[in-house]
């Protein structure tokens, strides 16, 4: 019974509400009740809709998304620390992300979800899921430890980009919580462009030579994921504003 009131089963709510209204209307017809009773039935159905089966998709969506984004932020920092060979409990952060994603608001895909909200919410959720996928993919790169001297050239840039991504995530979380963001950053692209340029000055230009060293390929993959993360975050912030 509790699940009917708490679960995001829009179709079930609509069916139950319509069943109650139909039953009351049927009783009115059977007992040949007057128009006042018809008005009373309408009033009761409105009360049921507001009190017993209330719909607050905006609030529920925000409440579901914010913990996911917070888990993502910790996980991203842990991945960066693991890449730069600093101590981190990446497995614990990974479990937090998995647990948060298990409770993501999949009800936006259900039949009966409000038509005016449907497209926007679904696209936003797709972006959130893609962000999580990019983070999992970054962890797969850690399976191939990169050369410490090679990484040392780029550690400052990686630290800076990760910090910027975390700040952007905090801005996004603040916007979702309907508060005014305090962080204002002018440039969201130049840091990653600079890292890419620096990488290609160190990596060989000849494709055959580039492909010989796996470190080049895996680090290029890492940069690609950083780009994806930034692009997804900017699209999410843009969709909210």
């Amino acid at each position, binding site marked *: 019974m509790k699940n009917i009131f708490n679960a995001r089963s829009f179709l079930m709510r609509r069916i139950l509400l319509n069943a109650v209204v139909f039953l009351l209307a049927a009783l009115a017809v059977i007992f040949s009740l007057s128009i006042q009773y018809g008005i009373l039935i309408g009033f009761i159905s409105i009360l049921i809709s507001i009190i017993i089966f209330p719909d607050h998709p905006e609030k529920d969506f925000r409440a579901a998304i914010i913990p996911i984004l917070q888990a993502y932020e910790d996980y991203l920092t842990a991945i960066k620390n693991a890449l730069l060979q600093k101590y981190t409990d990446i497995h614990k952060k990974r479990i937090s992300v998995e647990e948060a994603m298990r409770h993501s608001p999949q009800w936006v895909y259900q039949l009966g979800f409000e038509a005016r909200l449907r497209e926007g919410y679904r696209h936003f959720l797709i972006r959130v899921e893609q962000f999580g*996928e990019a983070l999992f993919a970054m962890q797969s790169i850690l399976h191939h430890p990169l050369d410490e001297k090679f990484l040392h050239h780029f550690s400052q840039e990686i630290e800076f980009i990760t910090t910027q991504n975390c700040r952007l995530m905090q801005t996004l979380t603040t916007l979702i919580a309907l508060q005014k963001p305090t962080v204002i950053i002018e440039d969201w692209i130049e840091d990653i462009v600079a890292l890419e340029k620096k990488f290609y000055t160190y990596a060989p230009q000849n494709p055959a030579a580039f492909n010989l060293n796996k470190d080049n390929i895996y680090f290029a993959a890492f940069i690609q994921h950083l780009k994806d993360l930034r692009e997804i975050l900017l699209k999410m912030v843009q969709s909210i504003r």
Partner: protein
Amino acid sequence: MWKSILKKNRHDFLLNGLRSIYELQKIIFSIYLARDYNIKHFFYEKKLQEKNRIILDAFHQLREQHPLEKTDHYFMLEHCYNVLIEMSTLRYRLKDPVIFEICHQELLSISTEISHIFDHLLKKNVPQMAYNPQLLQENIFSLESIYQNVLQATLAEPIIFLIFIENLIALEKTLTQLSKRCYEKYI
């Protein structure tokens, strides 16, 4: 007595996770073989999310039921999942579906071979031998040849496809390791 019979063991949960990962790889390859991601974008994303949800639930069950037994199998499954997820990123990075048309046959062969490996791993009886990955390696090598001879010059960002090929190699190694473990000690 009934509780011990009905209670699922670690083997069942591992198979459950493996089965979910198998379903995920089928969807990922169907996106690249059908080449209609731009049109059916929402449909594929919804399917991927459903499969991801099932896999995360399987991992959760594995951790909840056997928290002290996080062996190599769990981490290999996790790595297999991470690699597949990385392979799936090509769907939104590579905008031109014609690229998949060029290497359609190779992708189809690779997908078929990966499915064979999963079928072998999910067999109910003890596998008679570890799966021989030679055919899969040959198919990946064919794809790599197409990349070096054709795609490297045509693609705007060839590194994206090179990363995809590296992920295929990583997936093949992980699945081969899993298959050897199954043969050495039936999970």
